[in-house]
């Protein structure tokens, strides 16, 4: 018997009606995903005083853009589900306070993009909601300063280090309509901790979580790798993605070119960014730009998105704890 724990199936076929993505100046210049973005800023702080205020502003703008594409205002939306990585998710809280939609903070670290999407689909499925806004964001300076060092501090980063992106990605989820990508099913991840402790090598810590969720999703929903046009992980980065593929290879999955990683590709594999990108804005802004557009245009028919997150804090790793990681998967189809 197949283990059904953590599996979600949406019979009512909720759809992603629109997306809104905002990116910072560096991403605009260097990221191949930014050409699909709706808005970019010349200033990392969006012209505001602090990084965190800029962070909230990015989030808020992304929500407004996603809603305006449906000709809706915030007062039409029933729920907003979003999160970020700053302490107590203050940027999301402030953004929610500005837009004034009933708000549930979501935290799965960098996997928030998928976890909020799944929760939004559930709300829609239950019939409690006609319009839910879901998304996540991150801002380089704010995250860097919280998890690592001051932005201007000179420390040599190894090949495993990842660059937190400044971006916000938001989607609106509504009950089924024709011509929009459908959220068919999903898998909630199990926290996986294989005892890695290096906070500058998070891709390696997250890879087993992604592999585990991937395996459970395929077994639970009875699909195979060939069913998908794209299987995209969130922010494993180059090294984590290698490990992920190696793990799948050992489990005898066919690791083909349908596998991609948003983090490794985020900055066009530029060597200056070392292992690639990370942050909760990374997967969100990649999924809701290129992947969503290609679903709409019909290039992709069925995709599996696995966002990964490392659930640590500066406190936990300084106290010598290991890095627990999670990965959530969502399957999106275009019919």
């Amino acid at each position, binding site marked *: 018997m197949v283990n059904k724990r953590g599996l979600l199936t949406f019979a009512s076929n909720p759809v992603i009606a629109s997306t809104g993505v905002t990116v*910072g100046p*560096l991403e605009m210049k*260097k990221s191949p995903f930014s050409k699909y973005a709706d808005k970019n800023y010349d200033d*990392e702080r969006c012209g505001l005083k602090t*990084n965190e205020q800029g962070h909230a502003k990015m989030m808020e703008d992304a929500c407004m853009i996603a809603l305006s594409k449906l000709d809706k205002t915030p007062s039409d939306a029933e729920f907003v589900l979003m999160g970020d990585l700053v302490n107590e998710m203050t940027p999301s809280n402030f953004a929610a306070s500005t837009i004034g939609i009933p708000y549930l903070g979501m935290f799965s670290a960098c996997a928030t993009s998928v976890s909020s999407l799944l929760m939004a689909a559930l709300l829609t499925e239950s019939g409690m909601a006609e319009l839910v806004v879901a998304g996540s964001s991150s801002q*380089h*300076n704010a995250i*860097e*300063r919280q998890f690592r060092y*001051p*932005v*201007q501090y000179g*420390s*040599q980063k190894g090949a495993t280090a990842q*660059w937190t992106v*400044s971006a916000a990605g938001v989607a609106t989820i509504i009950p089924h309509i024709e011509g929009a990508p459908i959220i068919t099913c999903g898998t909630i991840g199990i926290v996986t901790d294989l005892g890695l402790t290096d906070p500058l090598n998070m891709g390696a810590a997250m890879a087993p979580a992604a592999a585990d969720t991937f395996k459970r999703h395929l077994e639970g929903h009875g699909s195979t790798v060939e069913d998908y046009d794209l299987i995209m992980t969130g922010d494993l980065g180059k090294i984590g993605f290698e490990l992920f593929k190696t793990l799948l290879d050992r489990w005898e999955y066919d690791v083909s070119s349908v596998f991609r990683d948003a983090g490794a590709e985020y900055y066009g594999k530029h060597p*200056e*960014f070392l292992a690639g990108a990370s942050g909760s804005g990374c997967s969100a802004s990649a999924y809701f730009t290129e992947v969503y557009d290609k679903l709409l245009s019909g290039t992709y028919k069925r995709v599996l998105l696995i966002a990964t997150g490392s659930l640590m804090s500066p406190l936990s790793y300084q106290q010598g704890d290991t890095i627990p990681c999670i990965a959530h998967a969502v399957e999106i189809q275009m019919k």
Partner: protein
Amino acid sequence: MLSIFITSFIVGGLICVIGQLMMDVGKLTPAHTLCTLVVAGSILDGFGLYEPLIDFAGTGATIPITSFGNALTHGALAEAEKHGIIGVLTGMFEVTSSGISAAIIFGFVASLVFKSKGTI
């Protein structure tokens, strides 16, 4: 006059290589590396070995952080020589204050003038 430039370059560079090895091979964080080097500098001065190095290498020995430990110990020892055991406490910052005070002052000035930027 010329050879001091060469010795400065080489000695300063070698101290940095030691630091790099501690970071790469020993897997220490930069903060741990710096602390270890400071302690090493102060122990070397305890044996009276750091001063000759400064004479030999000039800034090659005074600019690396090891000199910070050396200067603290040197100040403490100089005072201890004059006033006995109490001097260990009182003499500590006699010599070194310039590095710390400069860092404090310029740090404050910088916080007034600059804003942090996340460009690569």
